[in-house]
């Protein structure tokens, strides 16, 4: 008993001092430090509607990575060059609480990069047509603030945050609103309607270790050791919405990841992750 404890401690010290060699030894045995195989994913759970102060919310757990997302609807004037479009404003916060990697204060570089990628995934692929957020053209539109907060950071925050954001949007309802021409104000009634989402995308990320091994759903320990990261975004039918690769990889790496992402999508029951 005492011996296994000291062995554990030794392994922990080794992991901190020589992270790369530590991971290499596991990879050589065809297994990862958390006992997963290379293309194994961590368990995913999605709980929606748990935050009553938000207009829509979701709590996503991907292994130990935990992200809460809340949607808040507010009213604003549209931009002059887009009078019939509302706003969708996604942001991911990585507070100091979720990992020793992050310090308190303004958003870290990692948070900014992730927020921008999430914005890209939600806006550019037209998840929610912005025209559906129009109350009165040129006068009044909805602004949906989609704020995600990471509670526990254990890698692959992009996948977890995108699922949390889409699930929160799907869970969200907004009041029926009318613009009063005479007073210039927008009034809402207590009846609420759900948003009309055009697509329900989900993300699947991979990393390449030592130029050869493709690891699915990397943890926060694996992430900094990866040479290349790949992300595949699929819609609810498992069709490709976007595919990205950052870093050197052979020609077959991206197609392999696409195939594995589709397989995972099917295992999760297609678009059913959003049906809870």
């Amino acid at each position, binding site marked *: 008993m005492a011996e296994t404890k000291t062995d554990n401690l030794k392994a922990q010290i080794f992991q901190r001092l020589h992270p790369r060699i530590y991971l290499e030894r596991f990879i050589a045995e065809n297994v990862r430090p958390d006992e997963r195989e290379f293309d194994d994913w961590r368990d995913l759970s999605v709980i929606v509607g748990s935050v009553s102060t938000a207009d829509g919310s979701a709590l996503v757990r991907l292994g130990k990575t935990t992200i809460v997302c809340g949607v808040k609807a507010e009213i604003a004037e549209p931009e002059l060059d887009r009078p019939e479009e509302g706003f969708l404003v996604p942001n991911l916060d990585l507070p100091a609480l979720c990992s020793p990697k992050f310090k308190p204060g303004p958003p870290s*570089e990692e948070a900014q990069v992730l927020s921008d990628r999430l914005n*890209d995934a939600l806006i550019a692929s037209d998840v929610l047509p912005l025209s559906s957020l129009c109350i009165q053209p040129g006068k009044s539109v909805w602004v949906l603030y989609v704020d995600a907060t990471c509670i526990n950071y254990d890698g692959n925050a992009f996948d977890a945050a995108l699922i949390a954001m889409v699930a929160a949007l799907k869970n969200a309802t907004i009041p029926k609103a009318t613009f009063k021409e005479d007073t210039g104000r927008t009034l809402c009634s207590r009846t609420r309607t759900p948003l009309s989402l055009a697509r329900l995308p989900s993300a699947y990320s991979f990393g390449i270790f030592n130029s050869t091994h493709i690891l699915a759903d990397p943890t926060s320990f694996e992430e900094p050791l990866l040479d290349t990261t790949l992300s595949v975004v699929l819609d609810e039918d498992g069709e490709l919405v976007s595919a990205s690769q*950052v870093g050197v*990889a*052979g020609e077959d790496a991206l197609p392999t990841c696409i195939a594995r992402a589709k397989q995972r999508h099917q295992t999760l029951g297609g678009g059913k992750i959003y049906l809870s």
Partner: protein
Amino acid sequence: MAPRADGRSVSEMRSLTGIFERLDRVDGSASFGFGETKALASVSGPIEVRLAVEQPSKATFEVTLRPLSGIPGTESKSLSASLRSVLAPSLILTRNPRTLVQLVFQSLTPSHSTHSPFYPSLVASFINASTLALLSVGSVPMSGVVCAVAVARIRSSDLNTSQPAPTLTLVLDPTEDESLASEGGGCFAFIFASDPADAGTGVVAKLVWTDWKAAKGTFDEGELSRATQLAKVGAERVREKMKDSVRSLDGSSDTSTTLKAEDNQKEAMEVEEDVDDAKMEI
């Protein structure tokens, strides 16, 4: 082939420009352009590093991106993080530990859209400009060169054709207007390097970056692989252009490239050595 708004065929690129800018306060600089889409890159390094970002085993590589107007926002941050990962594989940073290599981008082309200032062709010119700038510095050892080009998905009906059913076409090197009208697309970057494992094969191109996406509908693996192939051809041409530019730096005349410091004989002599190194790696 369906002609595009500017009369190009789908796989035709705009005229390429590669100019060594010779900015005074940096170690190396260059601009690269696809037609009107131009970007400037400057490199300083190895220079002194701030204690907070010093790395004991390799040089720190920093990338900063500046749009033509306005302050840099999250999209600048995100793009510079991507470009950092794209260019890092071409540098041998372990040679100069505890130093800093600084790369600064400046867009030279105004963007029509305030919502997405960095359209794919501009991003591609950022990458190409930085490769040229790194080559001109010579003080940062490189293991390969990174060349990039953009591809867009365009419905044929957008291309003034008489075809009744609009089909999706992939076009190389889209202009900003083409990108705005497109149904997605992306930028592709390849690293040209000799494979250390197999010296006999010569220089091979490996994909180092893509951000392919469909703004409307979906795409399949076939489309992605066609886009990759199209981009690879384009990247080869970019590489040829870079070779020309480097040759012109060397003094051998090439009228298609401008070399601002050509008349400055002394300075040209100074860089000659560096360029020789660079050429071996290209």
